């Protein structure tokens, strides 16, 4: 579904991502975890064509990103940082906008309002919604067309526990239907519940997978990060 082959992108000041190689198969949920600035959002932006790599290639559904036909993007659902929702429009109107732009059946909107429990705020303008409800609208907009590839950056941000469960169920349903899911998260416990594979990122590199079956995930996470930093000669002060 999604493949990154040796993808690198350097920003000014030495930041960026380096030699990223990652494959996400159908039916698989892959979580990206790492500290702030590790490069998780950059990886996702590269996968979605928001950034162009200086080296390497991104393949979407087996096709290089540059050659991907526009219609293929209707099979993708993504939420990066800010929901695709406009403050002057209501929840329902925003979901209609998302459906139109993804060439989706507009009937998915009403189903999505129910699934994400957005019925009570369906006719309320987006600007009047709480932060958590805005995030739910954004997730509904990204997932209502039942995409084959889902890419979500910190999707559980601002969500209450009930909404986190909704999200978990939705992601499991997409994967169960043969979709591929990539999520980034800071919540290791949530990752352990959701993901089939958890990939660690540090200083712009993928440094391996985290065994989420272990007893103390936090300890394991920080040990791996510290070990990678030590090998690279990075001190806590430098970070």
């Amino acid at each position, binding site marked *: 579904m999604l493949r990154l082959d040796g993808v690198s992108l350097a*920003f*000014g000041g030495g930041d960026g991502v380096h030699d990223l190689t990652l494959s996400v198969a159908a039916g698989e949920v892959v979580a990206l975890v790492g500290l702030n600035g590790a490069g998780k959002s950059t990886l996702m*932006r590269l996968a*979605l*064509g*928001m*950034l*162009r790599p200086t080296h390497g290639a991104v393949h979407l559904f087996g096709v290089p990103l540059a050659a991907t036909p*526009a*219609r*293929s*993007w*209707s099979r*993708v659902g*993504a*939420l*990066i*940082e*800010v*929901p*695709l*929702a*406009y*403050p*002057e*429009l209501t929840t329902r*109107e925003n979901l209609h*906008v*998302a459906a*139109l*732009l*993804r*060439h989706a059946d507009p009937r998915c909107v009403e189903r999505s309002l129910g699934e994400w429990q957005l019925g009570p705020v369906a006719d309320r303008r987006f600007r009047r919604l709480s932060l958590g409800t805005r995030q739910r609208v954004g997730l509904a*907009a990204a997932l209502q067309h039942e995409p084959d590839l889902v*890419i979500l950056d910190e999707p559980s941000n601002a969500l209450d526990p009930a909404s986190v469960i909704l999200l978990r169920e939705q992601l499991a349903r997409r994967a169960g239907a043969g979709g591929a899911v990539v999520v980034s998260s800071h919540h290791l416990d949530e990752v352990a519940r959701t993901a089939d594979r958890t990939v660690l990122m540090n200083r712009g590199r993928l440094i391996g997978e985290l065994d989420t079956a272990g007893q103390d995930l936090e300890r394991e996470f920080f040990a791996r990060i510290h070990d990678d930093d030590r090998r690279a000669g990075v001190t806590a002060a430098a970070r």
Partner: protein
Amino acid sequence: MNAAVRVEAVKLRRSPVGVVATMALVGGTLALLAGITAAVAGGDAAVIAKAGAAASLDWEGMLLGAGQVTAAGGMLGFGAVLSWTFAREFTDGTITGLFALPVTRGRIALAKLTVYGAWVVAVSGLLTLGLLGLGLALGYGTPDTTVWDAVARQCVLGVLTGITTVPAALVATATRSLLGGVGGAIGLVVLAQVGALAGAGGWMPLAAPALWAASGGTAVTGAQLTLTVAVGAVGALATWWTWSRLTLRR
């Protein structure tokens, strides 16, 4: 393309920006002209001196004044809405949601320009109708052929002013800022004024529509007006190209 046009249309229709700008351009212009007319009718020497030929209390004077307001105020009003249309995606952060869609960014940019163009035509038409109502209310009588010609030129002036403002979309995109785009529109107004003062006449594409309307169509040639349209077309093409190649590199 159809989907993107529908989306952009609902965004402009539901936004206070579109409503306020429409009211300012139509209602504001009419209120200004009514005020000038009242001052001239009351014998206010300062206003009469400043208004010049527009101080004449008839159709010709009113339409001359409307043309002057439209040329400068229209460029700012149209520019503000156009800049908001493009820059808001960056300032609201929604630009990330406009990637990874089957509707390409180039088509979204064209949809924005299409909806903007339709709005400019609607505002120009509304203003023209308002001017007809104002003239009749002021007792200027039934318009004759000459007045109808001037009324038609006023409507076209509104549309041409909207076209000359299109480069503001490129500035708003390049700066990713509403104020940047509005600054671009102000720059266009300044350029038009400098061009007019420098005596470029009809060959200054930003000033040509106003000169054309004010002269009753005699001071500007068809080729010169084509140049005006070309400015808008080049601005639209450059904006489309920029959106087609857009990335979110910091």
